[in-house]
């Protein structure tokens, strides 16, 4: 494409004299029309009235204008309208800029007329410097597959998959076990309707089967993930089932002849108790677990006696194939949903309660199994809450569901055996929302006692095996001694083993507790890798309803990377290969892991993964990376244009880089509210404070600007994870250098601002200007 003409049109929107009250527009127009490259410089009459833009449109149509600069107050929507109107005339929307003099405080600051006009001129020249270097850009299309990957076919994953298929997309469900359903399939009953969880799971499975758009990959794991949003290349490793899924109809003839009994253990804890309602033992060939879907049976080949092929012989459909090999499969998907769920915290670590030592100390998950089985219901039952959770020695967080689970289990227990005595030992009972009703019901029930106090140790009685414990009833201060038949430990949740493995494969960051890191406040379903979404307990402990909601939310977000193509804003970074020396710092520091090596070994951003924050621009030691719409040269040109002094005498000048998510608004609102922001400052907006490269700060100082201010988000609130911290450290390094250079290190200042911190912004600038006055002019001033 040929470089568009450099003839720039400058148009002022005076709003019927509003700008003109503060500024000498004639003087400005006069000066500007004589500036090289300006082919037209005038006031607009009324851009929103009929024919208001005609003068602009005519010139564009006649090809007299290659670039545009609008000066005045335009809202975001109004800018959009202007872009559209001119795009209709063939004018590339990226070849124009807006200079808002008001938000820079020009119209209300305490400057006297000449200085104010000079500042206005300077600001316009800054924006002109940028406009001269603009390039015509267009959004980029990247191909987007129409299928999604869901890792983990538990309750959350299944329901999310249903939503996805309802919208006509294809979904691949990857599950490491032989059957779907996860932990929920092993529960006895659910609160609030006290219904069987398998009912809801069965419903989802039917919906998925009927849709014809769901493919199940059981006994599978993801071993690699390449590419990016829109086109992730996934490689699955599939363990052999030893049964042909197409032929098997679960008639069970094979199991009848199988000579081997196998203990069913919690998959995540080999040798551990079977979770919940799962059978304690099965034959070596058995239906899929936890739920019998996929319908085909599965053989646990490691238990087969050598040479035994009884099941193969017995199968009337010839479905058993004991020679199956593991295989790999490759998938192309648009986005990935991680719903790998939770595992119970190993309660044997909480030694004081004797889990694993005494047979009548069980976990809440095992209690589900007991309540669903025909076993005799014990009479004296205790529930200890917060076992392992809310405990610095184990899990510092609350596992969210254990209180509700214990309440529910106490209710069943009383239903099964009305003369049972339940004791619930708690610190706090967390029964939010409508669950309060359950709590109140149980509190008033005969034979259910809530004791606020946690026992310290549990000892079995030698003869009876009953468990003796002592506890302080903290509400009365009295000692309570009990002998119980059964003790249920309300254990906590940890991220599943599947989550751990996956984190390595997908290089997905996790927080310090092992859960997948997300931007909790605004985007809980997002992970730090674009295109990979996280839902359910792999993100945070939560109940079943919340897991399903969370996963469906994540599915909704994931859909944007499906549907043929995805449009990427042309604001992505570009690496200048003549300058880059492959130090890989951009790759290391990118908060979203967007960079990969191209065929020549140069770091390249993946357009789908990139969130266009510009942190790579800031970190590159050679300033070799630019954002397409905010290049290093454009920024350097703006800084150069700002270096001529507009202040009188020895007044210092300050150049500020403000992050466009928080700091910019603080500054703009400060001007709006008429706060006494010193007029010495001019600012530019950057996508993230992390964009600010040390070379740009060096430019500003070398050209004589007295002070540089960087405004960033508060710690922990940066929209791009840690851009504020990165730039803070860099500017610190530069300050150290300044000190060595016999310059005041404080000429570079860093401030954290929240979106409404206008007062803090004003105070910061005031202090800065005062300090700069005391420091004297920049020694580089010529």
């Amino acid at each position: 494409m040929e470089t568009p003409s450099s003839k720039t049109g400058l148009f002022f929107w005076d709003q019927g004299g509003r700008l003109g009250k503060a500024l000498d527009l004639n003087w400005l127009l006069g000066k500007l029309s004589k500036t090289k490259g300006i082919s037209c410089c005038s006031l607009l009459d009324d851009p929103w009235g009929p024919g208001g833009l005609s003068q602009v449109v005519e010139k564009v149509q006649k090809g007299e204008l290659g670039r545009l600069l609008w000066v005045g107050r335009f809202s975001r929507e109004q800018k959009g309208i202007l872009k559209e109107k001119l795009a209709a005339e063939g004018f590339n929307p990226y070849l124009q800029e807006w200079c808002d003099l008001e938000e820079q405080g020009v119209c209300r600051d305490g400057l006297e007329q000449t200085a104010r006009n000079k500042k206005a001129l300077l600001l316009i020249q800054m924006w002109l410097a940028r406009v001269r270097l603009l390039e015509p850009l267009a959004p980029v299309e990247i191909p987007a597959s129409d299928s999604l990957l869901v890792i983990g076919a538990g309750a959350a994953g299944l329901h999310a998959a249903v939503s996805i298929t309802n919208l006509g997309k294809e979904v691949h469900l990857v599950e490491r076990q032989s059957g779907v359903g996860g932990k929920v399939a092993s529960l006895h009953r659910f609160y609030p309707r006290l219904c069987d969880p398998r009912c809801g799971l069965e419903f989802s499975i039917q919906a998925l089967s009927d849709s014809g758009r769901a493919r199940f990959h059981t006994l599978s794991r993801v071993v690699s993930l390449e590419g990016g949003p829109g086109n992730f290349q996934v490689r699955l490793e599939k363990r052999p089932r030893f049964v042909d899924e197409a032929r098997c109809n679960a008639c069970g003839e094979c199991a009848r002849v199988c000579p081997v009994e196998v203990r069913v253990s919690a998959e995540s804890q080999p040798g551990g108790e079977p979770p919940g309602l799962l059978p304690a033992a099965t034959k070596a060939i058995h239906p899929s677990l936890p739920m019998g879907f996929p319908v085909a049976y599965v053989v646990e080949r490691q238990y087969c006696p050598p040479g035994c092929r009884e099941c193969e012989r017995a199968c009337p459909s010839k479905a058993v194939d004991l020679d199956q090999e593991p295989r790999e499969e490759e998938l192309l998907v648009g986005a990935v949903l991680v719903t790998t769920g939770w595992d119970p915290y190993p309660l044997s670590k909480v030694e004081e309660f004797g889990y694993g030592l005494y047979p009548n100390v069980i976990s809440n998950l095992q209690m589900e199994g007991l309540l669903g089985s025909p076993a005799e219901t014990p009479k004296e039952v205790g529930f200890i809450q917060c076992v392992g959770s809310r405990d610095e020695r184990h899990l510092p967080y609350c596992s969210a569901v254990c209180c509700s689970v214990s309440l529910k289990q106490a209710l069943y227990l009383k239903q099964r055996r009305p003369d049972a005595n339940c004791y619930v030992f708690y610190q706090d009972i967390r029964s939010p929302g409508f669950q309060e009703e359950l709590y109140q019901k149980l509190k008033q029930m005969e034979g259910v006692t809530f004791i606020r106090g946690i026992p310290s140790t549990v000892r079995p009685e030698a003869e009876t095996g009953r468990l003796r414990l002592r506890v302080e009833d903290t509400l009365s201060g009295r000692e309570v001694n009990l002998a119980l038949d059964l003790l249920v430990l309300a254990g906590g949740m940890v991220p599943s083993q599947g989550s751990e493995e996956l984190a390595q494969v997908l290089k997905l960051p996790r927080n310090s507790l092992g859960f997948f890191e997300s931007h909790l406040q605004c985007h809980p379903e997002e992970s730090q890798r674009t295109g990979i979404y996280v839902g359910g307990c792999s993100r945070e402990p939560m109940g079943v309803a919340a897991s399903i909601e969370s996963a469906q939310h994540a599915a909704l977000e994931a859909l944007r990377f499906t549907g043929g193509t995805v449009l990427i804003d042309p604001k992505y970074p570009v690496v200048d290969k003549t300058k880059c020396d492959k130090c890989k710092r951009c790759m290391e520091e990118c908060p979203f892991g967007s960079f990969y090596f191209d065929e020549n070994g140069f770091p390249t951003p993946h357009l789908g993964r990139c969130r266009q924050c510009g942190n790579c621009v800031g970190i590159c030691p050679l300033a070799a990376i630019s954002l397409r719409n905010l290049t290093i040269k454009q920024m350097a040109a703006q800084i150069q244009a700002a270096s001529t002094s507009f202040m009188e005498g020895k007044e210092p000048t300050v150049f500020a880089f403000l992050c466009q998510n928080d700091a910019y608004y603080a500054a703009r609102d400060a001007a709006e509210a008429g706060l006494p922001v010193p007029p010495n400052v001019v600012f530019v907006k950057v996508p993230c404070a992390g964009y600010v490269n040390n070379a740009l700060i060096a430019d500003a100082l070398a050209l004589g600007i007295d002070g540089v201010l960087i405004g960033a988000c508060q710690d922990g609130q940066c929209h791009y994870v840690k851009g504020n911290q990165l730039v803070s450290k860099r500017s610190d390094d530069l300050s150290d250098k300044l000190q060595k250079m016999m310059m005041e290190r404080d000429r570079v200042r860093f401030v954290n601002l929240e979106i409404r911190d206008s007062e803090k912004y004003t105070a910061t600038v005031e202090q800065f200007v005062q300090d700069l006055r005391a420091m004297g002019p920049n020694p580089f001033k010529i």
Partner: protein
Amino acid sequence: MPPKVDKEKCDGCKAQQEPLCEQVCPGDLMTLGEDKKAYCRMPRDCWDCMSCTKACPVGAIETRIPYQLGYHLAKLIPMMGTNTITWTCIDINGKVERFRYVNRGRLD
């Protein structure tokens, strides 16, 4: 005189294949030590081009001026802009002079 690396600031360029100072040194003198920090392995061969000082992203390198020219108290510090270099010269008496040059060598 050879470059001096501030071990606290140096992060070994995150111990990638080669740190920046190693990549840029024309005499192949800078390298990573056992502590994963950069150092000059042949101080006598250094000819004070200061490429390493300019390249270091965290400003951990300082060149030592030979005693004939000013020794410890004298300093020569470059600050890299986008297309400029500013030099600050401090002589043994503490007098400071500053120079700014546009870098015409860049392939733009």
